[in-house]
């Protein structure tokens, strides 16, 4: 029983990290209608900056630099690539982000090489014991940070003029532009926010119990895609629910894989995708996604 509770707690903490990544993905989609396949490489970029700098300037400044760096990379991608596209087909732009992803991931994995980089976090492998349950400090920190950031983001999305502009642009880009919303800034902001959130997520994906930042980290970041899709691409609530669902499933599948050996090893990495497939079979637009209406 205590194993189950532990696994659930771990899953929620991990899921909140996925929710952070998925949120950035959804923000870009809502603001620009572009599916950002380069999101995993933004995450890798943020993690890499933190990992390289933490020895020289300390952990917290390095984390800030990582967030700023990933936000800058995201903004640069928007400014240098996305904005130059003159057509109107958003699925083509999704393919451009695949090209960007190939470029960024190649550069970052070349720099990382076969190393496993530590991010120099202050939590180490300390464990918090609550009665029969034990939980790593890193997981507690991950959950707290994700909850704070997500709350702050949702408040900003609802109440600041930036949030209003972004929602207006998502509703109808043309009308928003006529009302004086500067669409370029909105999408630039969305990309930067996505990068920043991804950098924070990079920190929590690479701390204890994972060994550190390595090539495979971008594969772990890919799990946020099923999270975003199964929640519904255009729904921030969906991103949160999807993230938690993916985190809990992964944690349970990893925890009980001893009982599920007939399905093979490494089931935890597969679980998010199986859940996503099951959800999409029943609800093709995700749990909270708006069903597409089309006029002919």
């Amino acid at each position, binding site marked *: 029983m205590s194993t189950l509770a532990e696994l659930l707690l771990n899953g929620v903490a991990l899921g909140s990290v996925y929710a952070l990544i998925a949120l950035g993905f959804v923000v870009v989609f809502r603001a620009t209608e572009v599916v950002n396949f380069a999101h995993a490489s933004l995450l890798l970029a943020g993690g890499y900056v933190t990992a390289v700098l933490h020895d020289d300037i300390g952990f917290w400044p390095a984390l800030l630099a990582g967030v700023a760096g990933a936000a800058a990379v995201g903004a640069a991608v928007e400014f240098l690539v996305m904005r130059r596209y003159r057509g109107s087909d958003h699925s*083509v732009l*999704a*393919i451009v982000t*695949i090209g960007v992803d*190939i*470029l960024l991931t190649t550069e970052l994995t070349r720099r990382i090489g076969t190393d496993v980089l530590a991010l120099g976090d202050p939590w180490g492998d300390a464990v918090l014991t609550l009665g029969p349950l034990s939980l790593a400090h890193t997981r507690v920190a991950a959950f707290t940070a994700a909850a704070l950031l997500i709350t702050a983001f949702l408040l900003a999305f609802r109440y600041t003029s930036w949030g209003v502009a972004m929602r207006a642009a998502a509703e109808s880009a043309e009308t928003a532009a006529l009302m004086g919303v500067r669409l370029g800034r909105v999408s630039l902001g969305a990309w930067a926010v996505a990068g920043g959130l991804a950098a924070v997520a990079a920190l929590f994906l690479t701390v204890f119990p994972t060994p550190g930042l390595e090539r495979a980290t971008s594969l772990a970041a890919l799990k946020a895609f099923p999270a975003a899709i199964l929640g519904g*691409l255009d729904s921030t609530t969906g991103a949160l629910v999807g993230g938690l669902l993916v985190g809990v499933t992964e944690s349970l599948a990893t925890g009980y894989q001893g009982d599920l050996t007939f399905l093979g090893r490494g089931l935890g990495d597969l679980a998010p995708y199986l859940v996503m497939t099951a959800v999409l*079979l029943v609800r*093709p637009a995700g749990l909270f996604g708006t069903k597409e209406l089309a006029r002919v």
Partner: protein
Amino acid sequence: MSEAVRDDTATPPGRRPAPAPHRGSAAPIRARTRPYAWAAAAVLALALPFYLDRFWLQAGLFAMAAAIGAIGLTLLTGATGQLSMGHAFFLAIGAYGYCVFAADGSDGLVGLGLPGWLAAVLAVLAAGAAGGLFSPIAGRLHGAYLGIATLALIFIGQHALFNARELTGGFNGRDVPPPTLFGLTFDDSGLVVASVPFGAVEKLWYLGLALLLGCALFARGVLRGRPGRAMNAIRDHRVAAGVMGVPVARHRAAVFVLSSMYAGLAGVLLALVFRRTVPDHFGIALSLEYLAMIVIGGLGSVAGAVLGAFFVSLLPQLLTRYSDALPLVSAPGTGGIAPGEASRYLYGAAVVAVVLFLPGGLVRVAARRRARSRQAPHAAPRPAEER
């Protein structure tokens, strides 16, 4: 008034023959030279095994296999507008399916010991069946949803490849038995044609050529005919296509199956050239490579898929071969940019550049140049053979 109108309408027929000789003279020249160009290309392709060494033949074979896979993907993503990131999964089914059907089980892994050609056909059918199993999703989802749902295939595939050891050999992969066709075994046994020893690659070269030609012609037929129109209609406006009487879900599922069969065939050819299949090869990077191919060549065009496939798969080979002579590129492990990485930079940048600056890809560039040399009155008429 009516007189004048009749005059206006009467003059064009008189005037129309005037530009006709100009256009008419240019087109027949092209039409007359085209068979010669094709014949020259065919002779060149047939003669290459007598002159090239093994390295280049193998590189060419990889490119042919990639071209077959890319044609399949361009039918799905280019012509029907269904983004798929799961192409590598179907390549894996083709490659491993061939091994399972053709191996004789002497290495301790499952093998049915069927003749090579039957094993290849069955492997392609298996890939198609896998695509069909996915059709409840492929027929209903579209755009980014489908793209990410197909991402699941990659991870399911990787999981199966590493865990179903009796079928796949696990991490180390398994050997690919050489096929036999019409009593000819495609291995390095001592066949000598015109004092050139004909090993496995030389023989496979002709097999690859025949397969590629067949696949390209079939895909062109599909695209030019009724199904092609339906596919383009689905891409351009799903609902409108449905209203016009195109069974959208059925077409989508069918194209998905066809595209996975192409991928399966590409996987079979790839396995025959590699002579060993390993699971690591069939990861997400391979899927992205195929997407890069069809974008660089030009979405929805068979010629573009072939062009893009040759570009993307020959680039690393070229860079490896000439890494000494090139600046910035150095052999793997020496600290500089390895050829594999350099080529990934190049095709990643090519994808971005093509979409931003050359909508339509490489084939469109060629078509535009041809149109300009014809000095057609309207800037760039779209040649019919593009779609």
